[in-house]
């Protein structure tokens, strides 16, 4: 594992009196896949929001590549290399699948303010978009508006947008929730592929233990907004915090 790329220092946020993220200090390295677990409402999504900028921190800082980005707007963080897929699907519902992906690639290419050329002339944007749609197996739906996709397929597109953005730091928030058992592997394989590239940092919020077991290099546990554990998967999974606060009893057959 190489140098740290992303770091949060005493990062906190309050909503009214409620401290949703409580002084989290943590470092993430390039090539590493960190799974973030914790009970519902522990602050995982909020932690993500703080890193990617959707929410302003009450205290503490976020440092990317040695640069303090705590006060930067979302779009600028995106250009610096923070990419995010959302827990609740969040797409452009009346645009078609391909256009959704194309927009991401156009953003990356920095052509948003190009006003005098025709968008359809930019083949160099369209082709990679088609390729990514293919990779998440949505080619058949490429020209369908997103609002007509089933839930599972919308989840796949959500992931596709992040892949199209190809940031330095990938943040997945429960990417496979609501995906059927035979479709989920498509996404998991993509994540595994990314991990194999070794030049990207991946943060993954997931509730499915089997996924974590196979993918994670490291697990951090959030509880009540605070960092409760951090370490090797096996070690963390066995710890009391996780057992008590998170796993509960195993499901018994009825």
């Amino acid at each position: 594992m190489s140098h740290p790329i992303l770091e949060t220092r005493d990062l906190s946020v309050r909503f009214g009196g409620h401290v949703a993220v409580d002084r989290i200090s943590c470092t993430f390295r390039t090539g590493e896949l960190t799974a973030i677990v914790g009970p519902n409402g522990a602050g995982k999504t909020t932690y993500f929001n703080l890193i990617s900028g959707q929410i302003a921190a009450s205290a503490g800082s976020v440092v990317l590549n040695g640069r303090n980005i705590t006060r930067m707007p979302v779009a600028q963080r995106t250009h610096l290399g923070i990419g995010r897929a959302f827990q609740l699907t969040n797409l452009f519902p009346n645009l078609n699948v391909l256009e959704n992906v194309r927009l991401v690639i156009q953003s990356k290419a920095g052509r948003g303010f190009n006003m005098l050329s025709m968008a359809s002339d930019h083949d160099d944007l369209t082709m990679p978009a088609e390729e990514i749609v293919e990779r998440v197996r949505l080619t058949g739906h490429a020209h369908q508006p997103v609002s007509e996709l089933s839930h599972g397929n919308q989840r796949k597109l959500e992931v596709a947008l992040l892949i199209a953005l190809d940031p330095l730091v990938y943040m997945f928030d429960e990417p496979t929730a609501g995906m059927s058992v035979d479709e989920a592997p498509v996404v998991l394989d993509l994540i595994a592929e990314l991990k194999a590239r070794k030049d990207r940092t991946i943060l993954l919020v997931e509730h499915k233990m089997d996924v974590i077991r196979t993918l994670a290099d490291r697990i951090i546990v959030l509880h009540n907004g605070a960092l409760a554990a951090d370490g090797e998967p096996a070690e963390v999974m066995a710890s009391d915090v996780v057992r008590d606060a998170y796993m509960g009893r195993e499901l018994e057959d009825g």
Partner: protein
Amino acid sequence: MTSSPDHLPTMARSSLSDRLAPYGPILILVLLVVFGFLAIPSMSSWLTLTVSGLAMGMMIFIMASGLTLVFGLMDVINFGHGAFVSVGAFVGVSFLLLLQHMTGAPSLLLNLTALLVAIIGAMLATGIMGWAFERVIVKPVYGAHLKQILVTMGGLIVVEQLIIVLWGPEEIYITRPEALKGAITFAGAALEKYRLVAVGIGLVIFLLMRWILRHTKIGLIVRAGVENGEMVEALGYRLRLVFVGVFMAGSALAGLGGVLWGLYQEVITAHMGNEVMILIFIVVIIGGLGSVEGCFIGALLVGLLQNYVAFLEPKVALISNIGLMVAILMWRPMGMIPVVKAK
């Protein structure tokens, strides 16, 4: 026993400003009155201006309350609201003209009875009109703001023209019922009698609306229905019925406002409702869409500020309302008491 993990979120003490925040609007109102007191040299002028400002605010509130109800609960921007104000005024005034023997008599009781009849007539008429309006005009455009603006604008034009067809193009001049003319002088200040009646009616409406919204499910159903109508139906509520009902109530309130406003102006025209719309919108916006309390305080603020400013520096009165709106939106971008918080 269940095995749910105990999850107790960490709580921090909320600061003074956090705890004061909900009272902000009221504080502003109080501050404004105090400011008026300090800035206006003559005590009697201050009293006159304050009371009449509050009364003016109350009349604006009555006209605006229907809009904020429909706007906030149903998310319908009704540019045709002004038409209901006009219709209310015309129907109400027609009743009053019929009951001239009662309004002309110098008896407060007879006068108020006539006024009550006029109000009920106007509210019935505008309520029914609201039903038709909802059915024909608004129903197809729920959820589409822009189309609502246009369609209701079209409705406004049609209603105004129908008023002209029915009542003729001339302005109708009227005088207030005999016992409501003139003023009561108190400590050198003149408090118009009519305005005092308006204050009474306004307060009753305010309290009634508050009670209904807080203690019945109607408010919930409508607010939820706007966000996700399918789900409300799937819970078992006949949403359409509730929507129609709320729209009718909003319209009837506009009609009531119209009667009061018409009697205040002492002249009614088909366009009178539309002429107060900008003021009404300002009140609804600064109050926070859909908040009856906000609308109430906002209306009082507008009424007071207008009077103070017009007294102290008439030139500034040209833009005092707009200035107030911009200032409030800078302070709270969603209005003073936003109903819609989450996003």
